[in-house]
């Protein structure tokens, strides 16, 4: 999978729950927190992005649904 697509794929998975606008902004915000831009998310720093997204997602949709979404992201980005 092309590295460039990873950030978009994460946003796409999040958008099911948060809508496309919030999903895009969330990826941008939390990618920034790990020192990258959305376009710089690769398979190498994806686990860090997932860890950064977890607390946000737990607040928005709860722990169990968050684990499901983040698990799906990790699986589908492989």
């Amino acid at each position, binding site marked *: 999978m092309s590295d460039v697509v990873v950030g978009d794929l994460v946003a796409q998975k999040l958008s099911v729950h948060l809508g496309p606008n919030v999903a895009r902004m969330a990826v941008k*915000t939390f990618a920034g927190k790990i020192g990258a831009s959305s376009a710089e998310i690769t398979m190498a720093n994806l686990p860090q992005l997932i860890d950064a997204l977890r607390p946000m997602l737990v*607040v928005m949709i709860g*722990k169990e649904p968050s684990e499901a979404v983040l698990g799906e992201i990790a*699986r589908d980005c492989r």
Partner: protein
Amino acid sequence: MKFRSLAILAGVAATIVVTADTLVYQTLDRTVRPFYTTGLRTLLLLLVAVAAGLAANRFGWLREYVGRAWTCFFAAYSFLAASEVIRRATGGTTLASQLCVIAGNIAIVIGTALVARSFNAAGLDALTSRTRMVVATAVSLLIALALCYDAIVVNFRATLAGQEMASALVSPLADVITFALIAPLFLSAFALRGGQVFWIFALLTTGTMGWMLNQGWDIMAPAVGLDTEQIIRAGRIAGFAIACVFIAAAAFTQWLAARRAGQAVAIG
């Protein structure tokens, strides 16, 4: 079931409740009407309490942020249902019913505030412009004050005259805070459009608008020449039904979304 269908179902249910109530209430004897109204209000409040309890339970009650909000709504609507029953059973306002109203109103404020500040708690506060949020909150605060002004003044005077307990002021003051929080709820729902969480925020926003109608109808109806006793009661019950049915639908949507995600984990 799709969340959009749930929202439509909530709208249909609220319409049926209001229509049925209008038809049934006319046929009842005057002595029965207060008991009927208490019964209807208690049932609607219990509907929210059960739905909120389901959602809270799904999120471990106070363990998770989402669970805390639904625990507050569960407590709030349970207290309010208890106050209805106590007031009817004792034939008037008692300390016990007042305490239930105070606890219920405080819990609604906390629950609504928790949902309204979800974006802040999640670290997504940059999503909505600060200026837009301040302006929208100021506008909703002004509307809230306009809707609750009469109730605050009447209860304040009654308290000073010793006719009411100071606790009577808690309900309209809590309403002002809850109604002012409709701005962040609405802006969050708007930002979330296209996602599942949108429906939870949109249903909660609609439910809060129902409470605004319930509280403000006494002022709005006479202003447009609709000041008969029947119309005022029908408007207030409509607001009550919209609030309860839509907030219950929000809780059920939250529960359903989490349950589906849980099933996806189990299958995966």
